[in-house]
């Protein structure tokens, strides 16, 4: 019973850990470079979800006093009743970084494809070996 409580009570962390491990698995075990990049993206997204989930609260409102709907305006004064906006802001920056990394990785993939005509790691190393032997 305790274990179930433990899993359900902290399910947001479980989701992030599982997602992160899926991404990590793809980065390590997949031999296709595109799949590695996708795994990398899942890995980063998991961390973003972790940050966002730490700031969420049951029944909390947005942290804006002015023009809040109904009694939301009163709630926003009390720390316990509004969602902490800082993790969201941090993650905006992290998303920008993530997009940047993704872009650089894809650009590298284009150059790798132009050079080796494949995304499979094994085939690339085969080509390299052939080139080395030719020398």
């Amino acid at each position, binding site marked *: 019973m305790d274990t179930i409580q433990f899993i359900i009570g902290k399910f947001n962390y479980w989701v992030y850990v599982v997602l992160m491990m899926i991404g990590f698995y793809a*980065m390590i075990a997949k031999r296709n470079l595109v799949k590695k990049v996708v795994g*990398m993206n899942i*890995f980063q997204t998991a961390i973003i979800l972790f940050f966002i989930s730490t700031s969420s609260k049951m029944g909390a409102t947005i942290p804006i006093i002015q023009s809040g709907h109904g009694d939301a305006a009163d709630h926003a004064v009390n720390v316990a009743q509004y969602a902490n906006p800082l993790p969201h802001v941090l993650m905006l*920056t992290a998303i920008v*970084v993530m997009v940047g990394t993704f872009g*650089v990785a894809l650009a590298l993939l284009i*150059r790798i494809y132009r050079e080796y005509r494949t995304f499979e790691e094994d085939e690339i190393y085969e080509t390299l070996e052939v080139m080395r032997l030719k020398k």
Partner: protein
Amino acid sequence: MIAQSPALLVVVPLVGAVLCLLLGLIRRELCYPFVLAILGSCVILSFDVMGIVLSEGVIRYRLGGWEPPWGIEYLIDHLNAFIAIIVSSISFVVAIFSRKSIEHELAKEKIIYFYTIFLLLVTGLLGMTVTGDVFNIYVFLEITSLAGYALIAIGKDRAVLASFEYVVLGTVGACFYLLGVGYLYSVTGSLNIMDLTLLLPELYTSKVVLIAFAFFMVGLALKIALFPLHVWLPDAYTYAPSTVSALVAATMTKVGAYVMMRIMFTLFEPYFSIEFLPMAAILGWVAAGAMIFGCIQALAQTDFKRVLCYILIAEVGYIVLGISVGNRAGFTGAVLHILNDAVMMACLFMIAGAIYYKTGMRHIYEFAHLHKKMPVTVTCLIIAAISVVGVPPTCGFFSKWYLVLGAIDARQWFFAFLLLASSLMVAIVFFKMVQTIFFAPSPAGEESHDHGSASHSHEEHKHARDEAPASMMVPVFIMVAGILLLGIFSGEIVSTVIQYAVPKGF
């Protein structure tokens, strides 16, 4: 003394990067002098910041006037003012070197983008150095890394593949660091280093804090290529263009090591990192592995830049060993070694670049009789090599001296022994190189003595003195002068700067 110099240290190269791109689109030739001007002003600003720190103590610069726990703060003390000087000076000297080397190794239209990214890399490094906010460090870390991926990928051969591998592993490292930040934030609600220093001691037994610390350490170890997480480094730094190798080898790992010091001794108390957790012991063994493994691998390589890469891995081991012994001498040695190693590595990689520029040779076995063709370069190479080995008049000796003292103070006799053993192995690496250069039999050369004057003059021509151009040799001279002067004045450096950088509790 400019009141805004801490912020300008980051803003100048950042704005410079954008302007460099625009300027380059108008006239490509303007990029080089512009980059020199920008990096020159960074050097002046970093010395200015150091002046303020020396005369007025720690700088706490508030960006936009926001109070520390809420706004981002730049926190500059003796330690990071010192690192900022290293980063800006090395990047300035490497930038001087870059002109001919880049024209030789890159397509013309890529030069503008090269300099733009070069400035972004320096922005990231300086930002990581001066900031006093853990999340801000992550952002600058990623700016540095992204610029690094791009710069490495423009190299030839397998550079793209090496860069891709670096992207994957570097991202894992950065993500681990980010997770550490997230864990700390979820228990303390703060991102400011000085604020966290006050909040954390009560939470040292919290599992979340312990996990955060572990994530920080593994993430940074990946970023500084600490053995056994070094696999991305040799390929990436070998296939990168010479200028890029010189810059990243000299600065990126060093700034990472600085962040590691900050996390271990400022964010967490030395007591936590050394006694409460066995982190220091783990790092000590890992560093010992790096020192021995790096040197053994360096012995086995033939590509000159690859040899240097493995020596760099060993040097990272020295720095981390200095951090891990956790006493005054060890820490002094680590900080001094950051400076010395940056100068030595920049010097050696620039020499490798100069040799490649003139002769197109990458492998050591091709270097036979190089001293006849490039005597000055070879002399510089030998001085730098002597320093890496650690022979007294050069700077490499003094930092290793402090590191050995630190290991002895901590009663880690085995680590002190390993340090000396690995220095000996570096000596073998460079001795092999010198032997190849001076004494290797050259099959064509031996016979030409007996034959007619025609082949003799051909021989003369082959060995005619032909040094790299002045724009490449002057930076090498500056670095060689640095190696000698830093050795002579290392006492002054320790007494004016580093002794104040040693954390409290040592």
